[in-house]
């Protein structure tokens, strides 16, 4: 309809014959659009998802059943479940990396959640300079991970880094920081906590702003103290928001690459090698592309199942 109206102003419409012909065509086209507009409008998005997401995932899964190295000119060699057998039964480096991935994610996300919620609740109160503090607090999250990782690497340097200099001023024994295979992962968790606690805080603040006032007023009338209000009212009401926040953070933490790669490259030895770093080594350092694909397939399964579990938890608590 609208197509025909807009065409009406064109001079060519003056001739009834021509206009007839021209009217029929757009009307056919517009009829088609009318009948299929859902499909038509969805096409670009579907196309994008297929090309950028579905295809790579399927291709990676396909590749994980092959042995492939030596470049794009070499045909991948089908070996069935060979890669997975080797990965799951005969590769201690994979299992160690998997354990580290879970440890890194678990530690980082739990510390971030506790700290993030606490700071969010604090920022929800009125105090002097609240706006300024809130803005400052978000800065780590805005910074580029590679840039802040470089800064942390310099700070962690055992001989000339600022952290050991501070320890010396405080008359404390110096630390090797990330130059120790026992603690490297912990200090990487610290960087992640520094950067991503603000995200939990931000989501907490958004959630708190949306809470109803009545339960809090009722609790105040009943004489509940701050901790009781928090435990019995704030936290349960906030649960759906927190589950989403934790899910987002967890997926992100599982696939952390930049800060680990820049600060330790997965080292010393393999002490901070997570699954992502392991897959990176297998693909880009060793060119074991089929094997790397099988690592990523397993990793993909882990991420999807963890996210599904958490979302189940959310729907159950929401009911």
């Amino acid at each position, binding site marked *: 309809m609208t197509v025909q109206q807009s065409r009406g102003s064109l001079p060519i419409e003056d001739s009834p014959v021509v206009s007839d012909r021209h009217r029929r065509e757009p009307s056919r086209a517009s009829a088609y659009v009318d009948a299929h507009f859902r499909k038509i409008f969805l096409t670009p998005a579907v196309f994008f998802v297929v090309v950028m997401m579905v295809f790579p995932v399927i291709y990676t899964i396909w590749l994980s059943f092959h042995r492939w190295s030596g*470049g794009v000119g070499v045909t991948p060699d089908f070996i069935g479940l060979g890669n997975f057998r080797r990965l799951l039964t005969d590769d201690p480096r994979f299992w160690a990396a998997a354990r580290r991935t879970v440890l890194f994610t678990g530690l980082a996300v739990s510390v971030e959640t506790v700290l993030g919620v606490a700071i969010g609740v604090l920022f929800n109160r009125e105090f002097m300079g609240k706006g300024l503090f809130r803005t400052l607090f978000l800065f780590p999250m805005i910074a580029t991970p590679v840039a802040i990782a470089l800064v942390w690497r310099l700070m962690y340097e055992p001989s000339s880094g600022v952290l050991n200099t501070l320890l010396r001023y405080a008359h404390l024994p110096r630390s090797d920081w990330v130059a120790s295979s026992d603690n490297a992962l912990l200090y990487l968790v610290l960087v992640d906590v520094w950067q991503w606690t603000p995200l939990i805080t931000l989501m907490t603040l958004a959630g708190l702003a949306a809470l109803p006032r009545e339960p809090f007023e009722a609790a105040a009338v009943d004489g509940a103290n701050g901790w009781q209000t928090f435990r019995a009212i704030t936290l349960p009401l906030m649960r759906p928001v927190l589950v989403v926040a934790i899910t987002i953070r967890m997926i992100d933490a599982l696939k952390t690459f930049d800060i680990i790669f820049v600060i330790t490259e997965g080292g010393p030895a393999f002490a901070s090698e997570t699954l992502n770093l392991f897959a990176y080594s297998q693909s880009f350092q060793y060119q074991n592309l089929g094997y790397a694909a099988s690592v990523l397939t397993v990793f993909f399964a882990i991420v999807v199942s963890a996210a599904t579990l958490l979302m189940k938890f959310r729907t159950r608590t929401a009911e």
Partner: protein
Amino acid sequence: MRRSFSYQSRVLGAVTAALLLLGTAACGKDSNDKKAAPAGTAAGGAFNWQKHDGKTLTLMFSKHPWSDAITPLLGDFTAKTGIKTKVESLPEAQFRQRVQVEMTGKSDVIDVFMTAGQNEGAKFAKNGWYEPLDGYLADTSKVAPDYAAADLSPGVLTGLTFGKKLTALPISLEVEMLYYNKRLFKDAGVSVPTTYDELLDVAAKLDNKGGARAIALRGKGAASVTQFSAFLFGQGATWTEQSGKAAFATPEGVKAFETYGKLAREYGPPGAINRSWEEGLPMFQQGQVAMWIDAGAFMPKVMDKAASKVVEDVGFAPMPTGPGGAVQAYNGWGIGMSPFSKNKDAAWYFMQWATSPEIVGKITEAGIPGGRTSATFGPRFPADWVQTYTKAIGEARPQLPAVVSVGESRDAIGAAVVAAIEGKPVEPAVKKAETEFNRIVETAGG
């Protein structure tokens, strides 16, 4: 008339343009085709430096004294041949990865790249990532009359030959050696260690004297493996058996790991396991350590007054003697051509220019030896360095195990070096590296 003339000229113009286009297309094809190129020249196969005038080459370099020395000379190459060059220079680890990624994707971005035969030669050759050079070297129309190919060190050429194909031309041959600070040695009243036991002893005496730690060693996993090799050979152990399986987890091998670990942990600056030569070099240059064990190729850097505070105090010594003898270890770099290059003949011109007697002479003078047997050491070379180098070069062993997946093996062995430096139980770590090494050899390529 006018009109028809103009019409004719237009037609002529169009035809000429079409012919020109065809011509250039044919020329382009010619210069890419190795066989057709010499026939097309008027001189009928005579060598001509200007033949590939106007081409542009991309050179992929690792940060290394050789690339530092050749880069300022590239203007001479362009003046001589008309071939322009674009240099990309990256730190070693990133460089290796970049080359591999480009080769995996069959990219024609790189024309010439630095390559360490011991490290990636077998793998690259297996994957077909080197343009074989024998044909170029044998073709008189492509080799300058004064190139003197016979002067390229035959031993090094053998090391760069895989599957009977020459994969690269030698540019640098480096021997592992002990750099020491004569002033700090004199102050502590110690002399140059000649055995590994003496090395530990001297390190203990030097440590924390004159504001310096005793020794800097590479400790960053894979990067340390090359410099650890002399320790291993010195104890009488080797990387592999005849079968290709790991042979370094013997009691002698474990002793080598222990010695290396103890030196770095007790007598070196903290954080050794995060360091390679990039960190060790400035420590030695600044006089923060009394000894440094690394490739002799860094001599020009240590003797550079602008960067080094220890120019007057530097001494060089061979690797100490152990129960396995006074075993020296070497590594070498070459330049290879990408098989996916679109400018192979021009790339070959660069390669022969960079390894020509004239340029190798200049580079050797700058302190980087190894290209040619005839190159003489200039006045820039300290006498004790030359003595250490020439004595070692005849008998030195390759630093890295001769396997296909060197990178992966280096990571496995490097983990044991890290454990040794951290003071963890050495034997289990070495056994673990052995298991991992054998697994890598068995499953090479995945």
